[in-house]
């Protein structure tokens, strides 16, 4: 399959997806599928974004919740100041997420392996504490938000949020795919395999890691921004909840990180399971199931779902797809 042919298939798939999402908002009456679907789409955005740094570059970021929470609170602050529309909230969250990614990258990307991961956990705690003491956005008690009237052609705000999150999925996937097929992707893959050898082969490792960290952070924050309007409420301990980090990491690893489709599959599989369990048993069981699935996959399929589908897949990890 040529790269060109591949691109046509990809963008056709994207178009079908967007049309399906849009059609669903127009045809389905019941609001519940949108409530549940929003969360699944959100996790697709988060895990695709996470794997740009965590998968391609191999830098395991435990601070997904930091970027997510920053996205939420950027939206909250902006909404409270000026009543900015949703699109502006999301764009602003993306910018703040990228700046945070740059700052975090400059501070921590010289650390490798587990040290980087620990630093990102610390980051989340620092930011959460700061927000907790920021009265303007509600402090530790949280803040109630009144949704503005919904925009045409949607008849409910949740349906609109569902569609918006669908667009964010498209953006995240398109960016991840672009990186994967570009020389940036090859450079990230090289530095994941061996940082010194990559440097000595001409790869500007620090620069590439910073770029990955900024894009990943910006996308996670953008994915988190609509959550404030979704819940009509924000508080630090849920916006900065560590379970975002754990879920996203599990989804990306279970799906497989060598290809952008991996985190998408992982997020659909785990996100759907979580939603079903939350309805049928209890939301607490989620965590248990997540843990069990992660253990099973690490043992049975260390390369994730995509590794199972194509055993020789990893060879093409940096190739055109």
């Amino acid at each position, binding site marked *: 399959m040529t790269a060109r042919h591949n691109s046509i298939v990809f963008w056709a798939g994207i178009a079908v997806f967007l049309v399906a999402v849009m059609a669903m908002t127009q045809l389905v009456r019941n609001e519940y599928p949108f409530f549940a679907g929003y969360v699944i789409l959100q996790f697709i955005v988060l895990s695709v974004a996470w794997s740009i740094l965590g998968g391609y570059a191999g830098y395991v970021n435990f601070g997904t919740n930091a970027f997510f929470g920053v996205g939420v609170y950027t939206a909250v602050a902006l909404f409270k100041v000026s009543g900015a529309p949703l699109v502006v909230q999301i764009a602003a969250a993306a910018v703040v997420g990228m700046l945070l990614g740059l700052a975090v990258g400059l501070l921590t990307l010289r650390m490798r392996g587990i040290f980087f991961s620990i630093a990102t956990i610390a980051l989340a705690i620092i930011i959460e504490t700061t927000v907790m003491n920021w009265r303007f956005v509600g402090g530790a008690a949280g803040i109630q938000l009144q949704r503005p009237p919904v925009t045409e052609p949607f008849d409910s705000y949740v349906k609109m949020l569902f569609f918006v999150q669908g667009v964010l999925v498209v953006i995240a996937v398109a960016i991840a795919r672009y990186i994967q097929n570009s*020389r940036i992707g090859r450079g990230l893959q090289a530095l994941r*395999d061996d940082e010194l050898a990559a440097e000595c082969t001409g790869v500007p490792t620090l620069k590439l890691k910073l770029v990955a960290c900024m894009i990943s952070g910006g996308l996670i924050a953008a994915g988190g921004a609509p959550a404030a309007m979704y819940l009509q409420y924000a508080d630090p301990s849920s916006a900065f909840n560590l379970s975002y980090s754990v879920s996203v990491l599990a989804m990306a690893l279970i799906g497989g990180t060598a290809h952008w489709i991996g985190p998408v599959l992982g997020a659909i599989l785990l996100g759907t399971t979580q939603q079903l369990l939350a309805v049928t048993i209890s939301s607490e069981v989620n965590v248990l199931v997540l843990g069990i699935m992660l253990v099973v996959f690490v043992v049975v399929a260390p390369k994730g779902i995509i590794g199972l589908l194509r055993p020789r897949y990893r060879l093409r990890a940096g190739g055109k797809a």
Partner: protein
Amino acid sequence: MTTSPATPDAPLLQIRTLTKTFGGFTALDNISVDIKKGERFGLIGPNGSGKTTLINCISGALKPQIGNVIFCGEDITQLPPHQRARRGIARSFQIPRPFRSMTVLENLMVGLDFASAPGAAAAALPEEEVAMSILTRMGLAAKAGAPTDTLSQVELRKMELARAMAVRPKLLVSDEAMAGLSHSEVDEVLDLLISLGDEDITIIMIEHIMQAVMRFSERVMCLDAGRIIALGAPDEVMANKRVQEAYLGT
């Protein structure tokens, strides 16, 4: 340092009073040497004498406390390794460090993507063809699509040299590329290195296998405890009493 490299006899690489210490341990002590363009330069010395530290300072993995590294008339002492690779310094590693998740061909593509000088003559060719032509030269064409963990030791060594060649180096530093190889394999890799040297690529070779050093080098430098104890034609250096003492003990 902005001396123009235009003069034909100007050394390609100048090392000036290089000193590198790790805590209280002096790994390199006031090393100065010039390496000419196109030269085949052997670097020997007992274990722990500072050979790898010296080439780490040349390739940029380490930065010295004192002294300068000047390449093509430009002071590169403070440049990170990838900048040096782009200026034409490539290296292989004592223990091979392939990009394990990639095929042999993709390993080379990294260098072509990131380090090749833009506007090079071969830029007209698609990268894959350039990579294949390098692999063919190294006798690895049949392994182009193979993952690196299926390679034998000698193939890994050759792949490291091929990947270094993808950087289009002016200077190639080979760090014990023959360690752990059989006699016939040593000859194979040595022939490759010599043929690269014939193409105007300057080569610094670190090696413990003396026959290889003798056959390869135009000049040999022997280090001991971070100092130069001998520098000159291979047989002169081998005949040097201090070199023999360093290797055999007194």
